[in-house]
C-alpha cells in the first residue's frame, strides 16, 4: 500500500514510456512523413549497427569521452584528495569552494566554457599568448571541440571525485597503514598494495556514477558546440536528440536510445564485476 503510489508513478514515467519506445523502434514512424506507420522489425537496429557511420562514430567518440573523462577526473581527483587529506584544520574552508562546480547547472558550466574557450576574446588564449603560445580555436575547430567538452566536464566533476576519494582515504584503518610502513612499504608499493585496494570500493562507486553521466553528456554539447563543427563533438545522446527532435524521426531515435541503454547496462555491470574481482584479489 505504501509503495503503491511511488511504483505507479515510476511505472507511468519510466516503464510505460520505455515499452512504448521499444515498440516504436520496430516501426518506421516519422513525424513529418506522410507515409503510414508500418512494422519494420529490426530494420532500424540493423541499419544503425551495420551501416550508419555517423552513429558508429558518435558511439566511439562517446566511449572515448567516457574513458578520458573518468581517467583524468579520477587521477586529478586523487591528487586533490591526498592534498586535502594532509590538511587537518579548517578543511571545510578549502573543500566548500572547490565543490562549487558540482552544484551548478551544466548550462552555466557550458556558458563559462563558451567565454573561456572563445578563441579571440577569451581569457584562455590570452593566457597562452602571454607564454608565447598561439592557442587553438577550441570550440570552432574540429580538432579541439571534443577536447573542450572534455575539459569543461573535467572542470565541473573532478571536485566530486576528489570528495569521494577523500572520504575513502579518511576511512582507511590507520593501524594497517602504520603496519605496512613498519614492514618497509613506501611510495609506489605502498600505493599499489595498501592504499589502492583500500580506497577502491568507495572510489569505484564514484567512477561508476561519473562514467554513466559522461555517457549521457548532452547539456554541455548543446551549449558549447551543438555537436560541431561538422559532427566533431557529437555525442550519442546529442545525436539521438537531433534524430528525434530535429529530424523528426522518433522510430530511428528510439532504436538508438535502446542501443545506448544496452551499452550502458553492460558496461556498468562489467565494471562492477571487474571491481569486485579486484577487491577479492
Amino acid at each position, binding site marked *: 500500500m505504501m509503495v503503491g503510489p511511488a511504483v505507479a*508513478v515510476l511505472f507511468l514515467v519510466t516503464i510505460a514510456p520505455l515499452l512504448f519506445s521499444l515498440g516504436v523502434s520496430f516501426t518506421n514512424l516519422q513525424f513529418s512523413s506522410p507515409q503510414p506507420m508500418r512494422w519494420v522489425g529490426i530494420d532500424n537496429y540493423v541499419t544503425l549497427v551495420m551501416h550508419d557511420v555517423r552513429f558508429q562514430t558518435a558511439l566511439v567518440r562517446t566511449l572515448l569521452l567516457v574513458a578520458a573523462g573518468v581517467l583524468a577526473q579520477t587521477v586529478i581527483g586523487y591528487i586533490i584528495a591526498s592534498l586535502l587529506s594532509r590538511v587537518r584544520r579548517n578543511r571545510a574552508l578549502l573543500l566548500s569552494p572547490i565543490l562549487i562546480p558540482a552544484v551548478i547547472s551544466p548550462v552555466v558550466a557550458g556558458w563559462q566554457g563558451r567565454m573561456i574557450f572563445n578563441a579571440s576574446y577569451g581569457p584562455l588564449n590570452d593566457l597562452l599568448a602571454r607564454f608565447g603560445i598561439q592557442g587553438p580555436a577550441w570550440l570552432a575547430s574540429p580538432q579541439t571541440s571534443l577536447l573542450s567538452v572534455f575539459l569543461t566536464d573535467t572542470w565541473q566533476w573532478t571536485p566530486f571525485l576528489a570528495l569521494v576519494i577523500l572520504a575513502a582515504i579518511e576511512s582507511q584503518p590507520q593501524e594497517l597503514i602504520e603496519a605496512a610502513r613498519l614492514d618497509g612499504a613506501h611510495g609506489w608499493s605502498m600505493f599499489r598494495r595498501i592504499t589502492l585496494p583500500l580506497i577502491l570500493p568507495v572510489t569505484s562507486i564514484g567512477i561508476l556514477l561519473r562514467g554513466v553521466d559522461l555517457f549521457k553528456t548532452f547539456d554541455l554539447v548543446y551549449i558549447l558546440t551543438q555537436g560541431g563543427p561538422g559532427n566533431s563533438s557529437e555525442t550519442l545522446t546529442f545525436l539521438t536528440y537531433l534524430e528525434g527532435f530535429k529530424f523528426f524521426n522518433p522510430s530511428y531515435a528510439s532504436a538508438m536510445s535502446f542501443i545506448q541503454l544496452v551499452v550502458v547496462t553492460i558496461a556498468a555491470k562489467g565494471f562492477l564485476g571487474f571491481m569486485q574481482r579486484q577487491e577479492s584479489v
Partner: protein
Amino acid sequence: MSKRFMFELLKWLALFVVLVIFLFPLFWIIASSLKTRGEFFTRPPIWIPSHAEWSNYPDSLGRGALKGLVDSFTIAFSSMLVSLLLGSPAAYAIARFQVGKRNLAFWILSIRMFPPIATILPLFVIFRFVGLVDSYFGLILSYTVFNLPFAIWILKGFIEDLPREIEEAAKVDGASRFQIFRNIVIPLIAPGLVVVALFTFIFAWNDFAYAVIFSGSKVTPLPVVIAQFAGGHEILWGQISAAAIIAIVPALVLATFLQKYLTRGLTMGAIK
C-alpha cells in the same frame, strides 16, 4: 630550509593552484556580468572591468530571466514535494517489509543509469498526445523519473540505519503502522529528508535536457532561457552572464548551508 618545510610549502602551493583553477571560471562570469557590451570585444580581454555595469542584471531579468526564475522555482519546489511525499512511504515499505525484495531496489537504482533521452522521446510523444508539453505539470512529472528513485534509495538507507527496537516498542504500545511511520520514523530520518529535499530541488533546478524539450512559450525554466539567449543571433554576453549568476545563487546558497548533507547526496548514499 628543512625538507619538511619544503613539503609543506609545495602542498599549500598546489592547493592554491587547485583553488584558482576551480574558481577562475566563476570569477570570469561574475566579471563578465559586470562588463559593458564593448568590453567583451577587446584584445587582450579585460580581466577586471573598470566599473561595475549592474544594468546587465535588471536587463536580463526583463528579457525573460525573471519568468525563468519563477518557473524554475515552481517546478523544482513541486518536484521536491512530490519526491518526498511519494518517496518516504515507499522507502519505509522497502526497508522494513522487504516489499519487492532486492529487485525493486535494483530497478530503482538502474533508473539512474538511463540516458534521459531514452525516456524523453516516448514521454514527448505521450505528452504531446495528452497536452502536457509546455506545462508545469509535465515538467514536474518528468523530474519524478529521476528524483523519485533517488529519494527512495537515499531514504531507504536512512531507515535501515534506525534501530528496529524503537518501532517495536511503539507497536507494543498500540501504535498503528501509519502512526509509527508518521510520528516516529519521519522525525528520526529528518537528515535524510533534508538530503532528498536538497538534491531533488537542485537536480530539477539545474536540469536542461528535460527542460529544453518539454518547455515552450508558456513554461520557460531558467536554463532554457540562458540557452536561448546564448543561441540567438546577437549574443548578449553581459546579460547571459548575469542570468547565469542568478541561476547559480540558489543552488549555491542551499549547498553552502547544507554542506554536511552534500557528500551523501552526491554519492547516492554510498558515503555516509
